[in-house]
């Protein structure tokens, strides 16, 4: 990563210099910026290093010293920064729909979630899980390990293996930093595009500017490939945890039967590939890999039933 540290600014300056003698500045500028940002946050690991020989620009050193909000390192956020960002997003989502007031339910989802998360590549995050008051069918993950499932989705579940699969999918998003990377990309673009104006650049380093108003960020889509990846990881984590591997696919089967005109799945269907496509992709990825996995548990007996 260190090797690439100044790539973005190098690319910025190189483009700015080149673009002065060109028409259609904005278009080219954006394109190169986008490429540079993608390289910077590791979305294009296969891309060849940029061989620019320009000196790094000074825009990076601009600080938001006069702001009450601490500056956020968008290029390479620390785990603490990642968690603080996730906390802000989770808090906004909870502002739209609070937790279901049921202490036993809270403890139960955290128990299942914590055990599944322990099978992931980031077992040391402070994972937290909640069921929120909404009849929508959906689940959300925020950076740093904040995961929320709606009551409407919870209602569709009939055993613990299914819950493990759903939580596993969201854990997969956090492990792969899917949302974080989207925010990083957007903010680095904003900072880059605004580097001629110091004020604008400073503002864009702040968390509040990044996540927009309310819980808008939770309504955004990720790439389809990110959803398929989270499906594969979620199933893998739940399987490693000792659950019956097909919990997630059973839930996808159930959701797939919901009429797409039903308001409760409007946002889910808008932001995710159709459950049928997800089932096909998972089936192809599974192939014969589960043929020797036996004795996974469903644990419907201890599955926590909602009180209302």
């Amino acid at each position, binding site marked *: 990563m260190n090797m690439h540290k100044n790539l973005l600014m190098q690319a910025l300056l190189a483009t700015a210099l080149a673009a002065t003698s060109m028409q259609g500045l904005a278009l080219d500028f954006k394109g190169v910026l986008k490429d540079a940002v993608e390289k910077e946050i590791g979305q294009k690991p296969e891309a060849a290093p940029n061989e620019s020989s320009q000196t790094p620009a000074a825009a990076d050193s601009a600080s938001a010293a006069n702001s009450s909000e601490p500056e956020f390192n968008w290029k390479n956020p620390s785990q603490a920064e990642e968690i603080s960002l996730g*906390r802000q997003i989770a808090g906004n989502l909870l502002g739209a729909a609070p937790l279901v007031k049921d202490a036993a339910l809270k403890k139960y989802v955290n128990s299942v979630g*914590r055990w599944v998360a322990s099978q992931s590549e980031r077992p040391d995050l402070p994972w*937290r899980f909640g069921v929120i008051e909404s*009849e929508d069918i959906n689940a959300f993950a925020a950076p740093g390990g904040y995961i929320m499932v709606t009551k409407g989705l919870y209602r569709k579940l009939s055993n613990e293996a299914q819950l493990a699969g759903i939580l596993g999918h969201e854990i997969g998003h956090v492990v792969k930093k899917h949302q974080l990377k989207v925010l990083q990309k957007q903010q680095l673009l904003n900072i880059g595009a605004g580097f001629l104006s110091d004020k604008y650049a400073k503002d864009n380093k702040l968390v509040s500017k990044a996540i927009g108003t309310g819980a*808008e960020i939770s309504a955004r889509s990720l790439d389809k490939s990110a959803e398929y990846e989270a499906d594969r990881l979620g199933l893998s984590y739940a399987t*490693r945890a000792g659950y019956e591997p*097909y919990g997630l696919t059973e839930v996808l089967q159930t959701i797939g*039967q919901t009429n797409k005109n039903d308001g409760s799945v409007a946002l889910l269907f808008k932001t995710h590939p159709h459950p049928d496509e997800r089932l096909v992709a998972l*089936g192809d990825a599974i192939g014969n890999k589960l043929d020797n996995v036996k004795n996974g548990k469903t644990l419907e007996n201890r599955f926590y039933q909602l009180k209302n």
Partner: protein
Amino acid sequence: MTSKFRALLFIALLFCGQAVIAAETGTALKNDTLRKEPYADAKAGGILTRGESVDILKKQGAWLQIKTKKTTGWVRLLSVKRGASASGSQTAGVLAAASGRAGTGQVVSTTGIRGLSEEELKAAKFNESEVKTLEGYTLSADEGRQFANAGKLIPITFANLKAAKGDAK
């Protein structure tokens, strides 16, 4: 259309929908080979074509015994979408229209039920006390392990699934 007639129609459609579900139908999600036994190396006994309606006879482990128009055989669980066949979804669509929940393609949020529409999410205000409550339930890895032990969950070795070839989009 009188409201009485509409109600009758609704009930009739409701029964149609249930009949479809009760028969345990399904739809092929992909082209696949039907096996004579629920094993990958069992003899082939026919083919399944994507989109084809099937009857689901039995589930055994990760396999479904299904009946197509031509034959009966076993396929992997994820080769079939369970519950609603193509005709089943159409019924569901008509049902939704009859119950006033489907409009002109635009999704109308159901009144009286709290939703998480984009508008509602945008209007949300940070709720500090709820985040604190959420964080108050954070468990340690050890506590997770104890919970797993209580349910006799035994962790196994299993490599993360990778995207199937040609499916890395």
